[in-house]
Structure formats: structure tokens, C-alpha cells
């Protein structure tokens, strides 16, 4: 690959553009799938019956 002109930087620039487009595409997908709604509900989805909301869980899980 010669560096006779700045055209040779195009692969890098194109990679940046592809990254940018892929990020936008993922954002669009997440919007269509309802991932950007009801944020308060979504924040609680990591809690379970074994490790419920409202309980400090840095402890030995006794349910094992």
C-alpha cells in the first residue's frame, strides 16, 4: 500500500464510517424492539427471587 497521497488513508476512514453506521443501525434496532421504553422497569430486571430487589446481596447465597 503506497502512501503517495491521502487517498491511502481511505481504508481507515471507511472503517470509522462503518463503525459509525453499525452503531446507528444497532440503535435503530434497539428502538424498534422496544429497548428504549419503560426505563424504570428495565432497571429492575436484574433482580430475581434468589437475589431480590431491596436486599444486600454481597453475601453467601444460602439458597444453593
Amino acid at each position: 500500500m503506497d502512501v503517495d497521497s491521502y487517498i491511502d488513508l481511505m481504508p481507515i476512514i471507511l472503517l470509522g464510517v462503518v463503525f459509525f453506521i453499525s452503531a446507528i443501525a444497532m440503535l435503530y434496532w434497539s428502538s424498534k424492539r422496544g429497548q428504549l421504553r419503560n426505563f424504570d422497569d428495565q432497571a429492575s430486571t436484574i433482580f430475581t427471587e434468589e437475589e431480590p430487589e431491596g436486599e444486600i446481596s454481597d453475601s453467601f447465597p444460602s439458597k444453593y
Partner: protein
Amino acid sequence: MDTAPQSNSQIANPYSSKDAAVRAELSEIDASIRSSALFFTVSAIFWLLAGTVFALITAYKAHEPAFMADGAWSTFGRMRSAHLNAMALGWGNNIIFAIGLWIMARLCRAPIRHGGMLTIAGIFWNVGLTIGIGGIIAGDITSVEWLEIPHYATPLLAISYALIGVWGIVAFKFRKGEHVYVSQWYILAALFWFPWLYVIAQVMIIWFPARGVVQSVTNWWFAHNVLGLWLTPMALATAYYLIPKVLGRPIYSYYLSVLGFWALAIFYNWAGVHHLIGGPIPVWLISAGIVASVMMVIPVIVVGLNHHMSVVGLHKEVWRSPTLRFTVFGAISYTLVSLIGSSMAVRSVNEITHFTDFTVGHAHHGVYAFFSMIMFGGVYYMMPRLLKREWPSATLIKLHFWGSAVGISVMLFALHVTGWIQGLEMNNPDISMLEVVQNSMPWLKARTVSGVLLSFAHVAFAVNFFWMLFAAGAVRAKQGPTLLDSSSKEGAA
């Protein structure tokens, strides 16, 4: 066809369903990934110890160049690169594969499939890395920073990445429930980004090298994105999982967490070119990198605010928890290192910090104070759940924490101060290079002292880990969490 999206609130959440047939127990998920996660964690700790030895040798040689100067294998360049690769690819990647994939499995709410694929990937990764670092020490090192591993070892690493990436996609595809938690976004994105970065960099620099400045642009596009699009998202994913999980309180603002993720995804990729400020590349390209670097203030403030507000009022619990003591230290460091990084991209600041130890300090701020501290927190949370037993010694955890926290603080102070002084002095034509080096000596010795503290911390961590892993009956029978508050009677050593 009606494709109207279904609201998440309308979708049953199998993660907390009363129906056992719908809900996969966390313990079942933990059991399914136990072997792979343990393999990666054990490997990570071995590399952490090896990387620490390389680091001590390197730090000492910086002010005592005659130390271990008899053989080519122990020269500064090889030891320094062996340290970087052992820490970034040995400790960093193995612990990401352990904790990141464990969190991914838990959030996908299903026992993992094809666990053997992960183990094979782990074997490939560690064999490839051993050959690669052996090659560096033997003199086959490349001249490209962050890509020093010789070309004959990289195919093994690439195969390993491919297997882990495929596993991540499979895990995500067979997840239960529709919702994608923010940690999953970070992990999935990182699993997608890193192989891309690595393969492109290998092709354009090692296999079919571009000539001239294109190589440098590719080099820093890769190297900076390793930090920003691999280590950072994995650490943030871990923090976003651990902080609310341990405190039993949802993240302060899920909206902000999503905003932070997308801002990182959109801006970070452009930022690496700021490493070439002043170099012979198009000015507009550097300017684009500077703009992106400054725009990174948005996700950083968002994430920092979110983490801070999530622990407000629960600071005692944070201090008491081994997991959160490390994780919150790392989260605070993320805010600091990122804001310093954005300011370093500004031309007037970069004129001083470029080519100095300020950059070295900044790298350690990111990789250790931020990334590694959060990952230590992740290990303290994950291991009791994988092994169904508690940490044997709270004292060793405290030694680990204080050794790491004080050690890295001393290192950061020394390297930032000496870096700034070096920059000012090198910009002054009346000061000779010899004087610049002599003036750096006290600070470089302070860096070695900080390395000794970090070494003690890592040994304490390793001893506690293997004590837990090969626990005797007394440790197995221990009840209650290992907490760090002296008032606690629950299992505290």
C-alpha cells in the same frame, strides 16, 4: 405483517417468574459456566502475577539500567512489552472472559450452551499468549506498540477470539426474555468490536503492512480502542451489574445508562488519533480525533453521575462489601481518567504531556485503577456463587484493597507529576535531555515503591483465591458473607 414492537412492560419477565419451568435458576446458570469461568480466572491470576514480576523488573530498570543487563532477553524493551501483554492480554482478557461471560450468561437467563467451546477458546488463548510472550522475550518482538506479539502466535489468539465471539452470539440468541440489560449491550458490543479491531490491525500492520503514516494511524486506532472499546465496556458492564445487584437497588437512571452506552459507541472509535497530535498526518484527521475525545465527556459524566447517585445513602454498605469497595474505586477512577484523557487530547495540553511519563501514568490509571479494580470486585462477587463457599480471609481482602489502592495512587501521582515536569522541561531548549532524565529519577523510584505495594496486593489476592479454591473443611463450612466492617460478625475473618 404487523411488526409493531411490544413494550417491555407487557412482556413477562422469565427471570423472576414464579414458574420454575419458565425461570432458569441463577444457581443452575452459575453451575453451567463454572468450569469455564474458573479456568479463565485461574489463568488470569497466573498472568497477573507474571505481569507483576515483569513490571517490577521494568520499573527498577528505569532508574537502575544496569540491573539484569547481562542478557538481551531482560532488556527494558522486552520486559516492558512482556509486562504490557501479560497484563492486557493475559490478566485483562482472561478476567473479561471469566466475569463478562458469566454476567452475560446470568443476564441471558439461561444455562449456557457449548461450554466446551469456551474451554477450548481458553486453551487456545493461553497457549497462544504463552508462545507470544515467550517470543517477545526471545527477541521476536514486533516494533508496534500493543501488537508486540510475533506473527506466529497471533492465529491462535484469533481463533480463540472467534470462538468466544460465536459463543456470545449463541448465548444472546437463546436468551430468555426480550429485554436487553445495559450490561449486555456493553458486553455484546465489545465482543463484536474487539475481534474487528484485532483482525484489521493484524492485517494492516503485521500481515500486509500499510506503509508510512497509515501504519501509525492504524496502530493508534487499534491501541486506543483496545482501551475504549474492549476494556472499558467490559468494566462498565461489570459495574452496571454489580452496583445495583449488591445494593439491591436498581441503577439510579436506566435512561442515563443507555445514553452513556450509545455515546461511547458513537464517539470513542474516532478518538485514538489524538495520540498522533503533531505527527505528519492530515490535520483534519487529528482534529476529528480531538473533537471525539472531548465529546467523550458526555458518556463519562453520564456514567459517573449514574454510579454516584446509585450509591447515595448507602456508603456504609459500599465500604463493607468487598465487591463494591473495589468496584466503586474503579468507577470513580473511570470518571477521573476519562476527563484527564479528554483534556490530554487538547493540543495545548498535549504539547506538554506527549512523549512523557504522563501518558504512562494515564494508561495505568485506565487499565489498573479503573478496569482492574472493577474486575477484582467482580471476582469477589462471582467466586462465592461459582464455588458455593465463602472467601477464607477478610484480612487478605483488606490487604489486597489497600495495597492496590495506595499502590496505584502513589504510582499515578508520581508519573503524572514527573510527566508534566518532563514536558515543560523538554519544551525548554535551555534544559538538556540529561537534566530532564536526572530530574525524573526520584519519581521513577517512587513508581518502583508503588510497584512493590501492588505486588503485595496481588500476592494477597492470589493466596486468598487459591485458599478458597482448594479450601479445607473449615473454609467450606464457613457461614455468612465475608464483609470488611469490623462490626460485622458474619463470617468476617
